[in-house]
């Protein structure tokens, strides 16, 4: 059998087997789920806007946590990614830096938040550190790979001027990667705003704590208001990202 047929066929069989195992073909269960969705939807409408003052304060805390956490993580990720660039440092230095980044990245943001709640107690400080930690692991890996993809001709040409490693970072790696650095940073900020809205589930501050209370007390109209607020913030963040990209990304004219 030709590979052009075999590969899609294998993928299809695996997908069907996975869906069957996960219960996608249990018609009764699916029908019950859709009925419940209708009930849940009807219990969420109309959203209860009276909680806006409480939710607004929690939302602001969430935005602060994600903004501060992302930038702190970014500041820590840059040097780590530079140490993880094999073109700048010996193989073992790069391996250690990449191993540290991989280790940090392995732990999900929610788990990081729990760790920092244990260290610093309940509240947004723990959430900020949790977001910063996850950001370091993610951005350090992305940036190290980005720096390694820098055009070798530029490195050779600027290297032949006698530039030091730090000067190469400043004048080649950072400006050549500027667009991707900014794009990934914005992506991380968007991701962290979504992620930080559930950190309150483990006591790490922000909207999550309020959401958890409304879920446990079955106050779905109030929960709907929170979800709407998150949607507004995410849309605002999208617009902000688009503006930053348009304003700062370098493109040929």
């Amino acid at each position, binding site marked *: 059998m030709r590979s052009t047929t075999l590969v899609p066929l294998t993928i299809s069989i695996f997908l069907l087997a996975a869906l069957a195992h996960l219960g996608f073909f249990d018609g009764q269960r699916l029908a019950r789920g859709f009925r419940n969705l209708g009930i849940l939807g009807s219990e969420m409408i109309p959203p209860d806007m009276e909680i806006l003052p409480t939710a607004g304060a929690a939302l602001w805390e969430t935005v602060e946590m994600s903004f501060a956490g992302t930038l702190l993580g970014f500041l820590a990720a840059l040097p780590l990614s530079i140490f993880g660039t094999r073109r700048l440092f010996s193989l073992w230095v790069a391996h250690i830096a990449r191993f540290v980044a991989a280790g940090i990245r392995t732990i999900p943001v929610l788990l990081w938040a729990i760790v920092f709640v244990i260290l610093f107690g309940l509240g947004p400080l723990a959430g900020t550190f949790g977001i910063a930690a996850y950001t370091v692991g993610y951005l350090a890996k992305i940036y190290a790979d980005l720096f390694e993809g820098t055009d070798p*001709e530029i490195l050779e040409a600027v290297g*032949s*001027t*006698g530039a030091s490693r730090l000067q190469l970072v400043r004048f080649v790696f950072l400006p050549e990667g500027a667009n991707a650095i900014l794009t990934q940073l914005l992506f991380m900020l968007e991701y962290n705003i979504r992620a930080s809205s559930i950190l309150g589930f483990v006591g790490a501050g922000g909207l999550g704590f309020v959401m958890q209370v409304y879920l446990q007390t079955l106050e779905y109209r109030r929960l709907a208001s929170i979800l709407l607020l998150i949607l507004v913030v995410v849309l605002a963040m999208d617009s902000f990202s688009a503006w930053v990209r348009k304003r700062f990304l370098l493109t040929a004219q």
Partner: protein
Amino acid sequence: MTRNGNQPVAVQANQIWFSYRNHDWVLKNISLSIPPGKHTVIMGPSGSGKTTLLRVLAGITKPGKGHVSVFGQSTYELEPRELSSLVGYIPQQLGLVRNLTALENVLMGSLGRLFHAKTLLGLFPRAESERAREALDMMGIAHKAAEPVFCLSGGERQRVAIARTLLQHPRVVLADEFASDLDLALASEILARIRRAAERENITFIMNMHRIGLARQFGDNVLALSNGAIVPGFIGNEILETEAIEATL
């Protein structure tokens, strides 16, 4: 271009052999001696080893066997900063940082002699900035100093790359396939500017080229490569005046 008594030698290569990962030899027993101030053009068909030879002469690639020296100093024993005061290198795609301006790219030529942390903030001594503007002016592109490189045309980028090397102020510049993708008139104008700048700054240029007309205009010497070896009889300046090289290339 052969070694001549006690005359000073800009670039000396002795029995250079080179291969990539122990495959076939790309350079085979290359020996040459280039006097200072004599601009040399390396010619040859694609795959003849021109770029590899240039990289070996620039000290970027170490040969499997043999020895290269520039003004009597072995290129492989020098620290990068020491080497940069002797040798400048312009790769085929020029190696410019596209997101920085023409002036910032030229200023990079001074990095080898600037140790202080101010450069990391993008602050260069006034004297270096003035020299960088002079270098751009010498190449006829001072009015584009503030333009990012990605906005410049091919010819303008070539001028920026040369200006960066002028600011580096090495004694020898090696340029790979320089001006090869420009139209003849523009390439000719740029090469004329380079010759003037080289005479003023006392720099010896070695360039890979594949256009005979430009080689005749620019080169004092020509060296023809074929299959990794110097074509016998095709080393020296007399060949520029003959048509025989055209038949070989």
